[in-house]
């Protein structure tokens, strides 16, 4: 199922399909390791639900909802 990254719940995993957006926003996601094919796991949400900690290629990275919304994943 193709969804946006913030729709994943803690413990769920997804495979990055596409990074939307352009320029520096897109580049930043790529630099963090979010390239198509990457396995992403939701580690936990902060108390207020934003940001969310993701396990990406061996590191835990916190992303805000507006940043993570650029990333389309399929659940797995």
């Amino acid at each position, binding site marked *: 199922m193709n969804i946006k990254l913030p729709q994943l719940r803690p413990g769920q995993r997804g495979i990055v399909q596409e990074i939307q957006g352009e*320029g520096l926003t897109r*580049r*930043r996601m790529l*630099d963090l390791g979010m390239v198509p094919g990457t396995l992403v796991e939701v580690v936990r949400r902060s108390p207020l639900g934003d940001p969310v900690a993701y396990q990406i*290629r*061996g*590191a835990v990275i916190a992303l805000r909802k507006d940043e993570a919304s650029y990333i389309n994943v399929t659940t797995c």
Partner: protein
Amino acid sequence: MDGSDLTLLNHRNSNEEPVIALAGNPNTGKSTLFNALTGLHQHTGNWPGKTVLHSRGHYVYQGINYTVVDLPGTYSLIANSIDEEVARDFICFQKPEVTVVVADATCLERNLNLVLQIMEITSQVILAVNLMDEARRKKITIDDKELQRRLGVPVVPMEARQGVGVSELKDTIAQVIDRRIVPHPRLVRYEPDIEDAIALLEPQIIRALGDGISARWLSLRILEGNLDIVKNFLPASLIKEAV
């Protein structure tokens, strides 16, 4: 930064002691390595932006005095943030004799993005693969010889917290500086249309700026449309032409 600043920054007396830059992703033990090299017990910690203002230290190896500069931890040098800008400007303009990229052995793959970017800016690169002890604990083995062969730059496995690999790193730095080791970074080859565009831009950049700055790296930034970076370097006329 305008042209006059550029000249100022580019000018450094060759008699001065060699400058070593430490670059790397956040949380790779860069500041720990800095302390291990320089003997400083500077506070290290784990929060973003810790090293925005880079710290300097010194060490002596085989009678030569080296200056070490600890750059902010970054995932990239595209300058999304002030940290990246500081690190990028230092490597581009201050031209350290050697840039040591510190990588985390437990998640090496994600660190290689920065390694490849820095190799596009300068060939004077050493990769320090740190946290080898933690990698062993996680049953990760790193073939440092193969990594060195594939990257074309010296690779030094390290456990900086325990001081393991520090003298090997100092020795490798000395050898790169006096050209006993000459790194030949294997650069990323992009798709043919991108390589064609680079081939068009490169000679013009060299004509405008000389060989002080990697023309390939600047070409790529122009092609990305990242004109904020580019206008720090290039005369406006050339940018217009490239666009």
